[in-house]
């Protein structure tokens, strides 16, 4: 039982990394990126290709892939987010959904339907575990993933709180017109935000590739997990994402004990339970809390 709970919590770390970029973009730019999962899969494929070509470890590969993800983020911001945002949040939903369809199928076209994994590029890490005695084994990779989640989310938290660029991001999120009046270039800040979000997506892609196998069409499911963790976390704090991920991970792990299909059903049920609680508590919109726009304060 103890092992099961630990497994669920660690799985939550993976979901938190997955959700970080989605929640970040949503809270600072108001964009729900439906191509979020697809881009994580793109990152995983890039790491795979790099490892296959050069034989370097995916960890080292990340050093190259993350800057590329940042550039992709800037490009997507300039070509999709920014133009669609001018037409309202609903157009962004359609445009990013279209983008996910294009990416999924391009990946399929390029790599075929076979499942791929980075597991054989990371030595014994994919199966190595610590023995805590009493039959309690904990996989090293999932522990590292959990710590990576803490570092990613903690990094975002520190960045938003203490770094000048973080303050500028928050100010622009709260009132982009006024941000311009004090000399902040909202366009540049949106590009930086997108780059940051896409770097976290790159890390999520690495976690995806190392812990399991993936296919070109895996993006949809990843988006759903990330979204569920974000909603369950249901808070205006960055750490809510980790809590949401952990709850989702626990629900799935415990659900899987009941029935094979219980893994996904458990997660979905917790998601709807969280929605229901929100319904009962009144419309507590976490996004409003973090970045609500105010026309005039008087």
């Amino acid at each position: 039982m103890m092992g099961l709970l630990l497994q669920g919590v660690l799985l939550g770390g993976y979901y938190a990394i997955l959700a970080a970029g989605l929640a970040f973009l949503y809270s600072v730019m108001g964009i729900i990126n439906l191509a979020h999962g697809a881009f994580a899969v793109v990152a995983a494929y890039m790491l795979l290709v790099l490892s296959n070509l050069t034989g370097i470890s995916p960890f080292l590969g990340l050093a190259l892939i993350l800057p590329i993800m940042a550039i992709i983020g800037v490009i997507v911001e300039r070509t999709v987010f920014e133009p669609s945002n001018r037409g309202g949040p609903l157009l962004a939903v359609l445009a990013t959904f279209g983008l996910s369809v294009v990416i999924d199928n391009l990946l399929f076209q390029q790599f075929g339907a076979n499942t791929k994994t980075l597991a054989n590029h990371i030595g014994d890490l994919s199966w190595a575990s610590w023995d805590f005695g009493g039959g309690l084994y904990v996989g090293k990779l999932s522990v590292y993933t959990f710590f990576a989640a803490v570092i990613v989310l903690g990094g975002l938290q520190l960045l938003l709180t203490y770094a000048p660029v973080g303050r500028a991001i928050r100010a622009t999120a709260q009132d982009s017109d006024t941000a311009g009046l004090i000399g902040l270039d909202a366009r540049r800040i949106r590009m930086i935000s997108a780059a940051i979000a896409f770097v976290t997506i790159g890390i999520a892609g690495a976690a995806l590739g190392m812990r399991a196998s993936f296919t070109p069409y895996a993006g949809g499911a990843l988006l759903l997990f990330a979204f569920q963790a974000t909603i369950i976390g249901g808070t205006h704090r960055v750490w809510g994402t980790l809590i949401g991920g952990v709850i989702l991970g626990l629900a799935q792990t415990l659900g899987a004990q009941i029935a094979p299909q219980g893994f996904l059903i458990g997660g979905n049920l917790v998601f709807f339970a969280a929605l229901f609680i929100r319904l009962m508590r009144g419309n507590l919109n976490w996004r409003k809390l973090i970045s609500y726009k105010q026309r005039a304060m008087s």
Partner: protein
Amino acid sequence: MNKLEIRDLEVCHGLLKAVRGINLNVQAGEVLAIVGANGAGKSTLMRAIAGSHRASQGSITFMGQTLGDLPAHKRVGLGLCLVPEGRRLFPKLTVQENLTVGAQIGRIGYWTVEKIFEVFDNLVKRRHANADTLSGGEQQATAIGRALVANPELVLLDEVSLGLSPAIVDRVYSILPQLRETETTVVLVEQDLGRVMKVSDRIICMLEGRIVLEGATKDLTRDQIIEAYFGLKPNAVEGAET
């Protein structure tokens, strides 16, 4: 030397011409007050100067540079700052963060975040409070401070006394002598005529998007301004006809 030159400026709100055919020079170091009834186009003019509202015609020249379609954030870099109507602080940033983010443009000068806390010492104990928890006076002080830390050459103050008690307004305006000292040019929009007469060097009065009266404060009488304010012809004040 003129700090700011406005030629034939026209600004539209949709189909409505809010500002029409404005010509105006603002001299370095002066305090210019704009008065006028609600809807006279004062705030629109201020926003057009700051670059947050696009002018449809005419030109604005700041320190010899034509601004054209230069976006607001670049004008701040040149030393042109607007304290917008309604304060518009970042509600979920603390007082200190609001000020720091204002200083981020990186213009070094007399004003620093700490200097603001010195001048508006009532903000010190609210340093780490979120802006949306502040009182009106504290908000206004923060909003002015947020603009000043960019060390502007020209600061535009739009209705800074709105909704504040007279004692608080005194406190807000106590910043003006220091602005004169640092040779900062000030353009302010103000409803309180008494206050305007006291603090400004020059007054312009706007009516329906136009300047209808302009003059040095010491040369203008209160009645003259009131007539211009309401668009009354001097000989028609008590007349039945218009």
